[in-house]
């Protein structure tokens, strides 16, 4: 009787989490996989018997033969997300370095300024960019006078606008982990490198970068994956010409409904994401980073 108490207690304590995982994670995943292997019925709803027709259609095998359109969408999403992530790293790294090495008096106000814009809904922010990049705005005028676009078009909708929107949207997710990483940098190691004859560039590459690399990896996970499946930004700034996978999935469950195709696309998104995480995990394990705790 006595020994059973802790066991019962543990079950009781764990149950909310277990229930949550069951209903919010396991069950939907089971449905998703099931739908992805169903046949499409009337109104685009999934029907049995199971088949791989949705997967085949996603890969581009239709009644009219093979077309790469869906794969192009998938590839474009990966490229857009990758480019946006690189740009986010390029902007966030120096910004976070400045903030993280700032005296603590200035750090909080600066962090506040950096994350304040993200308290506005992302739809609102995307619409704001629509206005900023519209024809006859200063940015569009500048771009057309430099010859990048013709006079009347404006910068939106375009792949460039999607890129700008993604970078803007995800910047805080890279900046914050990097500020934490920079704040934890052991300054003594910087001094040691200087003491041991390293000039500024090698102080950076041997003493600063190794201590902040895990921040970049965490930021990449937080940016690249959501950017890959992003819906609002490409929807509002891409104008349908440069559809990304998130938009594609949403379209299969609404408008011209085809649930099995949508489920198959979502499944492939998940698979690609997992491959990405596995690669990052490899990087983290190789460098014995504290990131291992996370992955």
């Amino acid at each position, binding site marked *: 009787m006595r020994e059973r108490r802790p066991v019962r207690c543990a079950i009781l304590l764990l149950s909310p989490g277990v229930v949550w995982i069951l209903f919010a994670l396991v069950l939907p995943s089971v449905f998703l996989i099931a739908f992805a292997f169903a046949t499409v019925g009337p109104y685009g709803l999934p029907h049995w018997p199971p088949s791989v027709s949705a997967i085949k259609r996603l890969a581009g095998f239709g009644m009219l033969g093979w077309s790469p359109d869906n794969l192009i969408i998938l590839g474009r999403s990966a490229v857009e997300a990758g480019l946006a992530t690189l740009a986010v790293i390029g902007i966030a790294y120096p910004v976070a370095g400045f903030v993280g090495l700032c*005296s603590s008096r200035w750090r909080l106000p600066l962090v506040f300024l950096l994350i304040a814009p993200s308290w506005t809904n992302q739809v609102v922010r995307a619409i704001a960019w629509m206005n900023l990049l519209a024809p006859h705005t200063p940015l569009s005028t500048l771009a057309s006078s430099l010859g990048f676009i013709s006079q009347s078009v404006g910068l939106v909708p375009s792949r460039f606008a999607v890129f700008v929107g993604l970078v803007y949207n995800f910047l805080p997710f890279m900046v914050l982990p990097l500020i934490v990483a920079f704040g934890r940098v*052991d300054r*003594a*190691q910087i*001094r*040691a*490198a*200087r*003491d*041991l*004859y*390293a*000039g500024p560039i*090698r102080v950076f590459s*041997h*003493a600063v970068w*190794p*201590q902040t690399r895990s921040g970049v990896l965490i930021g990449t996970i937080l940016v690249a994956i959501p950017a890959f499946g992003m819906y609002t930004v490409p929807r509002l700034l891409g104008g349908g010409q440069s559809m990304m996978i998130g938009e594609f999935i949403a379209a299969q469950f609404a408008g011209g409904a085809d649930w099995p195709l949508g489920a198959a696309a979502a499944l492939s998104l998940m698979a690609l994401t997992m491959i990405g995480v596995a690669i990052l995990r490899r990087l983290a394990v190789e*460098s*014995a980073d504290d990131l291992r705790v996370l992955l």
Partner: protein
Amino acid sequence: MASNVGLRAVDKTFADGTRALDGVDLDVPGGQLFTVLGPSGCGKSTALAIIAGLDQPTSGHVEIDGRDVTNLPAHRRQVNTVFQSYALFEHMNVADNIGFGLRMRGVKKPEIRRAVEDMAGFLRIRALLRSRIGQLSGGERQRVALARALVNAPRVLLLDEPLSALDAELRTALADELADVQRALGITLVFVTHDQAEAMKLGDRMAVMQTGRIVQTDTPRGIYEKPATAWLARFMGLGNLWPIRGYGADGRVYLDFTTLFGLEAEGDYVLVRPEMIALTTAPPRGPNDVTADIVQAVFAGPSIDYRLHCNGQRMRVLAPNDGRMIHAPGTCVTARIPVERAALINA
């Protein structure tokens, strides 16, 4: 090989207004083990950083071998540091840590390997060369940090409290070893510590710092026998420091609890070391004998540490344990104050 180091009127005020160094003059003779002693926050690490070129003085000069190097960047000074926290590169293994300085100076790989292995052999950490820093114990880290600095054959080696994180036994062992290393290599070694015994035991010469200033620079014996200020005497834990209340005819000195005869110089305090006072049960005979009550007697192995009261004044006596009698608390004894070996101290 060994260089002498000088600080000339060095001030250091940090951006937040903290005045870490205040007119510091220091002369470290070449080839010696020089210790810098001072309480926490007195500016010891700052002084080392300025010698190494990792911090710039607000005013004043740094000299190495008589040459003004104040504006020479750290990587152009033949000075290396063992940092207070060791500051080892966590993402490199031990061998890469030790070889870092040579690598930065463009030494060829096989040569680096040989130098690293020799140094690791010298400090007996050869077995650790492939280990990650995270796996090392405190003592091992200390050796790696020492090797990383020494392998560059610096003319001056700065050590910032390298032993303070270690347990007492390891501490003594490594302190002896450091002194051996210094003698073997003949380099100039500046050793910072806040441990009085360590500073005295290791140093050929020592400087004592207090809130950004150097209070005294001398041999350990000189500082022990004639501390420059009362603060220093107290900080060194040197013993009985009694304020002088006045002077009388023929060398009389009035203290709170007695009058001493035959003191030569003048000062604000008289300092009498506890190990120099003799205790007897015989009645007072000489002019500088006083009666006192034993309050406490602590058995400390080779010596007995007595606390006494004498007309309301506290007194400490360290008597050799000669295996005979230990005075019990409550006993009244005679304390013989050796004025000829007392020091007069200014406030």
